[in-house]
């Protein structure tokens, strides 16, 4: 949106194609910039647990600022969806729209829809409305305000109501769920590990965050139960059955194993997966489905959206959490070893040191 672009003839077709070329990148950008807010708050909230032991005023202060990130992640999610579409001009409109959505009933879903709409509207205003050198400066200031106003009104009159009643419906359904339905839900959720933290996992993540924003914690319970299963299971397989893995893979597994428990990233499994996509995916999904079913069946919930080590403080049932991770990892490990024993890899060289990417 520099000054030159307005004075050139506009190639509408090419501009439009460019605009709608990769719609999901915007969603992923929103998630990417939202996550640090959750991480900061999640880690800080962990320290508020100390206030139960000693009631120094410092821990109370921590309790006050620790939740700020959690109250702002939805606005920033919308802001960066819009930023990804419209550049700098879209950031503030996205923030305002998402903040309005979040505080007026439509929550995370409203922020998602509003962020997209306001981003596209802003960029369409700025690129396609012809300006001359006198009106250009004014239009550059006025257009984002106009798009923000239009989308906020749209949220107010059209979107907020139905989305709010939809979330209430989901909340009521989740509240009435029993053990077998929970296990089924968990099993389905486990399938999200099929791409190891890629787009499918993140799509499930969007649902999870939407549920969290409306006060439903069970999806986060399922998410933490399955998230570390693939890396733990695959690394365990490499350590228990070294003859089936290359030297590079074994070294990587040894280094990564402790990190799997601390950090909670499914992506840690990737260096092992890229050498052997099919077997690793089958093993990981099998384990994740089991872990999800165990967690869902016993109604595991997580009240603060944080992955990895700090999550142990916020689950409603620690033994179930441990059981779900352990059972899932063991299933992944056993399936992996069986698959490699029954269907050995071609061109397998146990002394190959280079085959694992180095992440850490």
């Amino acid at each position, binding site marked *: 949106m*520099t000054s030159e672009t307005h004075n050139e003839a506009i190639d509408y077709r090419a501009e439009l194609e460019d605009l709608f070329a*990769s719609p999901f*990148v*915007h969603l*992923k*950008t929103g*998630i*990417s910039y939202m*996550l*640090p807010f959750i991480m900061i708050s999640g880690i800080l909230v962990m320290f508020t647990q100390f206030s139960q032991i000693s009631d120094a005023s410092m821990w109370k202060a921590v309790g006050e600022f620790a939740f700020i990130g959690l109250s702002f992640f939805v606005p920033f999610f919308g802001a960066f969806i819009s*930023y*990804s579409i419209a550049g700098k001009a879209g950031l503030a409109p996205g923030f305002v729209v998402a903040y309005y959505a979040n505080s007026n009933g439509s929550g995370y879903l409203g922020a998602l829809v509003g962020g997209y709409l306001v981003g596209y509207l802003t960029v369409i205003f700025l690129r396609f409305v012809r300006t001359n050198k006198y009106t250009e400066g004014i239009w550059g200031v006025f257009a984002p305000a106009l798009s923000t106003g239009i989308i906020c009104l749209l949220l107010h009159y059209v979107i907020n109501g139905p989305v709010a009643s939809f979330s209430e419906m989901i909340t009521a359904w989740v509240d009435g769920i029993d053990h077998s339905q929970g296990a089924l839900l968990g099993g389905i959720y486990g399938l999200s590990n099929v791409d190891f*933290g*890629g*787009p499918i996992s*993140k799509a499930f993540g969007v649902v999870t965050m939407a549920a969290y924003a409306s006060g439903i914690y069970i999806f986060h319970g399922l998410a933490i139960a399955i998230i570390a299963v693939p890396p733990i299971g695959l690394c365990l397989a490499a350590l228990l059955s070294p003859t089936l893995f290359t030297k590079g893979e074994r070294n990587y597994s040894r280094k990564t194993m402790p990190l799997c428990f601390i950090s909670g*990233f499914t*992506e*840690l499994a*990737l*260096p092992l997966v*890229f050498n052997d996509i099919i077997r690793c995916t089958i093993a990981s999904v099998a384990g994740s489905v089991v872990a999800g079913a165990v967690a869902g069946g016993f109604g595991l919930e997580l009240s603060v959206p944080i992955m990895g080590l700090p999550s142990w403080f916020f689950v409603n049932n620690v033994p179930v959490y441990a059981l779900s991770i352990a059972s899932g990892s063991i299933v992944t490990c056993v399936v992996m070893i069986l698959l490699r024993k029954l269907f050995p890899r071609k061109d397998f060289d146990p002394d190959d040191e280079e085959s694992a*990417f*180095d*992440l850490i």
Partner: protein
Amino acid sequence: MNIIIVTACLAGVAHSKMCAAALTKEAERRGHTVWNEIQSDSSRTGKVTPEQIEQADVVLFAYAVAIMEKERFRGKKVLKVPIEKALRNVKGTMDKLEALAAE
């Protein structure tokens, strides 16, 4: 030839680093000079300098999320590839990049 590789992935943890490492290895094997910019929270590579952008023959965006400050590369030959595709097909991506630079 001089190549700038800019990677950006969702969590800034795994894909961006792996992709940059794999592409750099392949490019250096083919005798090119490579400058990396890994756009992640924990990355220590920093930004490419204006001089490097000036000298670069071609720029590769391997992205899953929006590349920050794209306007720095205006006027350069830029190849945009989704990061997953680049990772699965490192050699093909490098072929495309060389073809673009030769145009």
